[in-house]
Structures are given as structure tokens and as C-alpha cells.
């Protein structure tokens, strides 16, 4: 685990390392300029233009007006918000629960750890295709197993109401990373704190609240914020689920309506992608990009504050 860096005043012979730092960082500085700063500025420029790869025309705020009256922008923003509000907390709480359970087990912990971690390695596309199959309303194994218990399963990826919960199940299945991070944090909590709490007569819940939670809260916070940032970028699983569940038979994604069913899986990054790289409305896509940028930066600021509190940045 990380230790906070000790910041000592620079000794004399360390002075003047600026030149060497510049030399060592130069490839990365070029990278930041070309792949970070330039495209950001350029996106702002394009957002005031109509551009379809052939003609570039200044149109002022028209892209912005269009984007903010576009029902799909609102819908995709709400879908992204749903992921932030429901999927991320569900994943964090689930992972914490499983990790907590793993710390309690006296035997079989190693094997279980591997079992819980492995699904998180399954390639996103493969996992999503598998879940669309497993949750197929008509012939999928899950609904067939449910039927054996007399339960009529929902339409999962086929219904607007169940599509996002289905993706949440996929997210829980792939929560192995978070489980491992929480497990490491939980095992780091000093044993004597629990013993002291137990002597004071604290029950299991009380111990968790007063001992465990305060110690692991930085890890929890870090996990939640990175989870949110990940949710803001959520693209692959939603796109694949829509494609496979809708039975789209095209190869390049040109005729397929994104967000199937009923736009319930249309996320902001997907809407941007389709606007920019399928409809080739680069200017309008740039407005979507800036919107996404603002949302992502808001959460990044939260993370940075968290980092500086935890002294990661020095």
C-alpha cells in the first residue's frame, strides 16, 4: 500500500533539477499538448462550427441551441445520471459486503477470492454478450431457471425499465477489482482496535461503524469517485447490450438505433459517438463533448480534493 511521501526541504545539490525534469518529461509534455490541450481547445472551436469532414462553416451558438433542445441529450444525460446514482453505489456496497464476508471466513478464502476476482477480467464485450444471452427473455437460461420456480422473469435487456438494472447486475458480477481493494483495506485495519471495541461491548454493527468505516473511508471514497468517473464514460457495455439485444444485423453500426430499448441505454458518450462518427456532425458532437467534459471535471475536482486530503498530491 502507498505511503504518503515525506516532503523534506530540497538539499542544495538537488537544486536546479528543472532542466533535467523537463528533459525526462518532454515526451509526455508533447503528449499532453497534442492529445489533451490541443483537442480540448479544438473542440471548443468546432463547437461553434458545422463540420462534416468536408465543409467547415461558422454557425455561432446553433449547435448549443440544438443540443440543449435535443430530447436525446436529455435522455442520455438522465441515463448517465441513473448509472451514477444507482449503479455505482450498488457496486461499492456490494463489493464492500463481499470483502467484509471474505475477512470473516476461516477457510476457503483463497479460492473464493479467485472466484470473485476472475469475472472482472472477462473482456467487457464478452461479458456483455454473455449476459444478454443469459438474460434473454424468451430462451435465456436465467428466465428458464426462474420459470422452474414458477417465476416469470422480466424482459431484462428487452425492456426499457429493466435494461439498466440488467447492466447493474453485470457490474456487480464484475466488481472483483473493488472487492480486492476493499479486502486489502479491511485487512489493514489494526486488530487491536476491534479487540478494544469488543471489550467495550460493541456489537458487530457497532464495530463496523466505529472502527472499520473510519479507517477504510478514504479507500471507499476513492473507489466511489473513480466509479462515478467510470460511469460518466460508460460506453462499451451499454452499446454492446443495445446492439446484441436489438438483434442489429449491420456490421458498421450505421443503421442501428443506439440506446435500444427505447433509448434506455443511450449514455452521453454513446450519443456523442453516434453524432460525431456515424452522422459525422462533428460540430454538434463537440458540444456533447464539452458537456461530458464539464461533468467529468466536476467529479475529478471532488477526487482531487480527496487526494489532497489524503496527501497523494505533494
Amino acid at each position: 500500500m502507498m505511503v504518503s511521501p515525506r516532503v523534506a526541504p530540497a538539499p542544495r545539490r538537488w537544486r536546479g533539477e528543472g532542466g533535467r525534469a523537463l528533459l525526462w518529461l518532454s515526451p509526455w509534455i508533447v503528449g499532453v499538448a497534442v492529445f489533451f490541450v490541443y483537442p480540448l481547445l479544438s473542440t471548443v472551436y468546432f463547437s461553434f462550427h458545422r463540420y462534416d469532414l468536408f465543409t467547415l462553416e461558422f454557425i455561432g451558438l446553433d449547435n448549443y441551441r440544438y443540443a440543449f433542445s435535443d430530447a436525446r441529450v436529455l435522455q442520455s444525460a438522465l441515463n448517465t445520471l441513473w448509472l451514477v446514482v444507482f449503479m455505482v453505489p450498488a457496486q461499492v456496497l456490494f463489493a464492500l459486503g463481499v470483502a467484509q464476508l471474505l475477512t470473516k471466513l476461516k477457510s476457503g478464502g483463497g479460492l473464493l477470492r479467485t472466484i470473485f476476482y476472475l469475472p472482472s477480467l472477462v473482456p467487457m464485450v464478452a461479458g456483455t454478450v454473455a449476459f444478454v444471452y443469459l438474460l434473454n427473455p424468451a430462451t435465456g437460461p436465467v428466465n428458464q431457471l426462474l420459470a422452474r420456480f414458477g417465476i416469470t422473469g422480466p424482459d431484462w435487456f428487452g425492456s426499457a425499465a429493466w435494461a439498466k438494472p440488467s447492466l447493474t447486475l453485470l457490474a456487480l458480477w464484475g466488481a472483483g477489482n473493488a472487492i480486492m481493494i476493499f479486502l486489502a483495506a479491511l485487512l489493514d485495519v489494526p486488530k487491536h482496535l476491534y479487540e478494544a471495541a469488543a471489550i467495550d461491548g460493541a456489537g458487530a454493527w457497532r464495530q463496523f461503524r466505529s472502527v472499520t468505516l473510519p479507517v477504510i473511508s478514504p479507500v471507499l471514497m476513492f473507489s466511489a469517485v473513480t466509479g462515478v468517473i467510470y460511469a460518466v464514460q460508460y460506453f462499451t457495455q451499454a452499446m454492446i447490450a443495445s446492439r446484441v439485444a436489438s438483434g442489429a444485423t449491420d456490421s458498421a453500426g450505421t443503421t442501428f438505433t443506439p440506446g435500444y430499448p427505447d433509448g434506455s441505454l443511450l449514455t452521453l458518450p454513446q450519443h456523442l459517438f453516434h453524432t460525431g462518427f456515424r452522422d459525422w456532425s462533428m460540430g454538434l458532437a463537440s458540444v456533447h463533448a464539452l458537456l461530458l467534459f464539464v461533468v467529468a471535471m466536476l467529479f475529478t475536482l471532488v477526487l482531487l480534493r480527496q487526494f489532497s486530503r489524503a496527501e497523494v498530491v505533494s
Partner: protein
Amino acid sequence: MTRRRGLMWIAQHALAIALALMFLGPVVLVALTALMTDEQALTSRLWPEQWNWANFGDVFARSELLTWTVNTFVYASLATLFMLVSSVPAAYALARFRFRGRKLAFLVVISAMMLPPQVVAVPIYLVWARLDLTDSLWPLILPMLFGDAFSIFLLRQFLITIPRDYTDAARVDGCSDVRILFTVILPMARPAIAAVALFSFFYCWNDYYGPLLYAGVDQEGWTLSLGLATFKAFHSVQWNLTMAATLLVTAPVIIVFLFAQRVFIEGVTLTGVKG
């Protein structure tokens, strides 16, 4: 008291086993389907009546899976190699040199790491289009020569934990920065470098968005994730083949993991960033 503890033991293990079954369930059901005949895959019977191992061969015969695997491997290997060459020195500089703007540089690393790739996609795409490199995977590989924010972040987090005394001693002995990096830092940072390399390789292996943007419409240039995403479209009623393909795409990742398990778990906890 002991009876209560015994009951707790049973409850905890029962819950753990139930959870384990839920994690394994999807894999088992996918594997069973992958071995069914075309007809049975459309029925409600879950246990293969006939073990159709030929499905795996069919996947290779009916799709470009082999080509996609090669493309994916080349993409992931080159990108990882380039990432290491560019990110290790940057992380070293951020962790070891004292200079004005060091804090700012690190803030830029974090911001770049958190930036959704879609935000900057339009202008970057236009640059590659002008260089006539779209319809290839080069737009995903070449930027790795200029450092990868996530890798720099993780490496830097590890490198700052190496006590300064080591590098100071080497410096007193008259070692150059490059020699210090190779003889002092790299051997000590091996677990972190291995973890970052594995993460990068896996990221590329799984990447769908990048190839979707750049690989073009010609199947010859696709990666596994692109191919698998459209597999169902080409073999629409054959869930068994789709599931066989899903397993084939997943298998290499799992095999690598089983061999490098320790590297992984250490790397994952490294990303946890304890406060």
C-alpha cells in the same frame, strides 16, 4: 456462545458459497451453451444432450477469429511496450526530481487520467484522418509513445515509496540519472512495472471503443472485441457459436491471470490508493 459461533460459521460459509455459485453461474451456463448443438441452444434444456466440441472449430472456420487475435495481440503488445518506454521515465521524473511545476504536472496527469476519451475524440480523429492513418490501429498505438496518464500515475505512486537514500547513494557515487533508473529504480519497481504492463495489455485486449473508432469496416483489420460485438449479428440464431466465441476471447485473459495472479492482486491494491 460456541453454538452461536458455530451458527455464524455456517451462515457465513453458506452465504459465501451461494455468492461463489452466482459468480460462477454465468461462466458455467455460457460453457454449457457453447457445447450445445444449434438446435438445442434455442430450447429450454440447459444440459447439452450432445457435447458438440466442434463448435469451437466452427468459430474459427466461420469468422476471422484468428486474424482478430493476431491484430489484438499486436495492438496490445506494441501499445504496452510503447507505454513502458514513455511512462517509466515520466513517472521517475515526477517522483524524484524537484522542480517548479511538479505539483501542476501531477495535477495534469490526474486530469488526463480522468478525462473521458470521448471528450477529445473529434479533433484527434481529424488529425489521424489527415495523416491517413484511420482504418488502422496505429491511432491507438502511436500515442502510447507519449506517455499514458494512468500508468504514469500508478508508477509514480510506487516510485515515491522508494526511499531517497538509495538514489542519493548512487548519486554520490557519480551515477547518471539514466544509470540510476536502470540499476536502482527499475529492479526495485519491478512489481509495479509488471502490474502496469499487465493492466495496459489487458486494457488494449478488452478495448472496444478505440478499435470501433479507428479500425474501419474491413474485418481483416478488426480486433477481438470488435469481432465479437458483431458476431451475433452474423450468426444470429446460433447462440452456441456466439458463446463459444465469447469463451475463446476470454480464455487467454484468464490463462494469463492464473500465471500472473500475484502481480495482479498487488497491482490492484496499488490502484486502491490508501489515504
